[in-house]
């Protein structure tokens, strides 16, 4: 028996009995537990690299409910590398303007003003089920092209053992339990991760004593496509803060912050939700309730994301408050960081210690996200009388004075972290811009046709600007691509010079498979490049 924990929005991988269920346990190089956005992104990335991967999900498709709705530029860039970016852009809602209110007063308005010269906007709003569906669509396309990815729906892992480098799983299905073995297991099974629990691993952090009511409403209103956020909203019973944000399909996300001591069942009654929404939207607003939910949240993470042959990614490894859209977005960056490393280790081209850097780099990212989202939460829900006094003082001053506006924190929107000071980073050159230092996610820039990031397709790439690059197709069996250009004729907006050269005349960048900068020089010989490659693939790590 496999429990049904939620209803399905899109049935994408219906249960099918496979021969392995009635055969001796079969060994798989990689098993991913959990077919959410992170599990599917890792599967897609590994499969496109030719590494066989099996995804086990205890449902037959994508769960209902919009859940994560803000997807950041970096996430779209990663999805684009994996072949799913355009579908997300076509469906998603692009927004730039945010308005912040305190009671009836508008405190200020901001424009994300995305820097020009990027293929993707700062954010799109898109219901999570669509995000997941587009990843599965890309998996189907990749499968058709030969990528060795298998998805088994209604396959629930009920127990696991890790012994001598092999993970053995008991998997429950509508036809009963079977066993399988994995060399590597990736737990993408969410914040309540059963795998984490089976291993008895801790997941410590801070609980926030607050409940948030989500009401997704369907209406054809002529509100602008903006993010409206209220501190101490003026509408009846709307709680301590409220949010109104547009999604595709004429759906609007409305959030109310209800406090800690509430009667969940009562607050979830449609008539009570409608009373709140009516008060917010005004008399006579016509809408349907599309999806409602009450959530609480915590900020916490595992100490390590790698435990032997078991790797944790996404919410199973770290959980943040929703303010700043750092949950799903950071999980997709986990996937981006993990897939190439695991692929190299499985192919015998890098030591297993490279996977420790997955944990180090993404723990670093998780800490940054937890810090930011904790600070936003403390601003939204002051924990003492004096913190509320300061919070409201800031909101009051921000109405008149520009200086106070940067102090208003309704969520610092997700940007990728820089892996500063971490062991994979190769050499840097002080004359080159800080922004593109080793460890940073490579910024996009326009080319004559298309954009720079689409040239970095998932292998290591030498990016030579106004310089010659030594011929080098591989280092120690690892493929190295070359992208070479001259800013005189191939930098139509000057963005490449600004972002990658600064005042320097020329530069050579080593770009990692996840499009982070691995090393950079003004000029480098073959030995220097090989040495940086070895560092970037974990061959210089102690242990």
């Amino acid at each position, binding site marked *: 028996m496999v429990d049904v924990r939620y209803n399905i929005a899109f049935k994408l991988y219906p249960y099918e009995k496979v021969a392995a269920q009635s055969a001796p346990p079969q060994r798989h190089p990689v098993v991913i537990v959990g077919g959410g956005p992170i599990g599917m992104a890792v599967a897609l990335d590994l499969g496109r690299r030719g590494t066989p991967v099996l995804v086990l999900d205890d449902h037959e498709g994508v769960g209902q409910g919009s859940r994560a709705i803000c997807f950041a530029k970096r996430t779209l860039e990663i999805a684009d590398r994996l072949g799913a970016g355009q579908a997300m852009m076509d469906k998603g809602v692009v927004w730039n303007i945010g308005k912040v209110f305190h009671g009836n007063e508008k405190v200020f308005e901001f424009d994300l003003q995305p820097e020009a010269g990027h293929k993707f906007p700062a954010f799109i709003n898109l219901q999570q089920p669509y995000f997941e569906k587009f990843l599965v669509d890309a998996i189907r396309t990749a499968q058709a092209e030969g990528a060795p990815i298998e998805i088994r729906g209604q396959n629930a892992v009920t127990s696991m053992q890790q012994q001598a480098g092999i993970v053995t799983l008991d998997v429950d299905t509508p036809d009963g339990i079977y066993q399988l073995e994995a060399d590597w297991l990736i737990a993408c099974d969410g914040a309540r991760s059963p795998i984490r629990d089976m291993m008895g691993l801790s997941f410590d952090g801070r609980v926030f004593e607050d409940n948030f009511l989500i009401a997704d409403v369907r209406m054809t209103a002529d509100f602008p496509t903006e993010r409206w956020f209220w501190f101490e909203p003026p509408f009846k019973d709307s709680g301590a803060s409220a949010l109104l944000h547009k999604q595709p399909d004429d759906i609007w996300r409305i959030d109310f912050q209800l406090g800690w001591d509430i009667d969940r069942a009562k607050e979830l009654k449609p008539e009570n939700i409608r009373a709140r929404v009516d008060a917010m939207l005004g008399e006579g607003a016509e809408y349907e309730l599309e999806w409602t939910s009450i959530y609480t949240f915590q900020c916490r993470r595992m100490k390590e994301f790698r435990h032997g042959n078991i790797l944790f990614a996404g919410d199973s490894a770290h959980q943040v408050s929703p303010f700043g859209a750092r949950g799903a977005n950071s999980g997709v960056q986990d996937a981006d960081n993990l897939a190439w490393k695991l692929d190299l280790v499985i192919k015998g081209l890098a030591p297993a210690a490279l996977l420790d850097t997955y944990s180090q780099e993404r723990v670093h990212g998780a800490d940054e996200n937890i810090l930011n989202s904790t600070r936003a939460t403390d601003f939204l829900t002051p924990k003492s009388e004096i913190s509320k*006094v*300061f919070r*409201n*003082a*800031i909101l009051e*001053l921000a109405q008149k004075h520009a*200086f*106070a506006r940067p*102090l208003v924190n309704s969520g610092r929107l997700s940007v990728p972290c820089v892996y500063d000071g971490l062991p994979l980073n190769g050499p840097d050159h002080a004359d080159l811009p800080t922004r593109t230092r080793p460890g940073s996610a490579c910024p996009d820039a326009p080319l004559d046709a298309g954009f720079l990031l689409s040239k970095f397709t998932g292998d290591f790439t030498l990016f030579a600007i106004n310089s010659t690059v030594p011929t080098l197709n591989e280092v120690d069996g690892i493929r190295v691509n070359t992208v070479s250009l001259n800013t005189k004729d191939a930098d139509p907006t000057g963005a490449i010079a600004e972002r990658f050269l600064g005042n320097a005349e020329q530069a050579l960048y080593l770009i990692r498979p996840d499009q982070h900068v691995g090393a950079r020089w003004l000029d480098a010989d073959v030995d220097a490049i090989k040495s940086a490659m070895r560092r970037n693939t974990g061959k210089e790590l102690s242990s």
Partner: protein
Amino acid sequence: MSLNLDPNIPDPDGFYDELLALHQGLDKAQSDALNARLILVLANHIGDRQILRDAMQTAKAR
């Protein structure tokens, strides 16, 4: 620059008068809010994080 803890306010009695007059007629909550706004305005003017940190520690150490 370091935090200046030497006398620096011309006409100290006049300044103190102004500070008290500012709070004239306000209840506790209004005064607290006013103090918070004043701290924020002054902090922004100073801007230097190290000086602000030193000032906070000076105020806290008694």
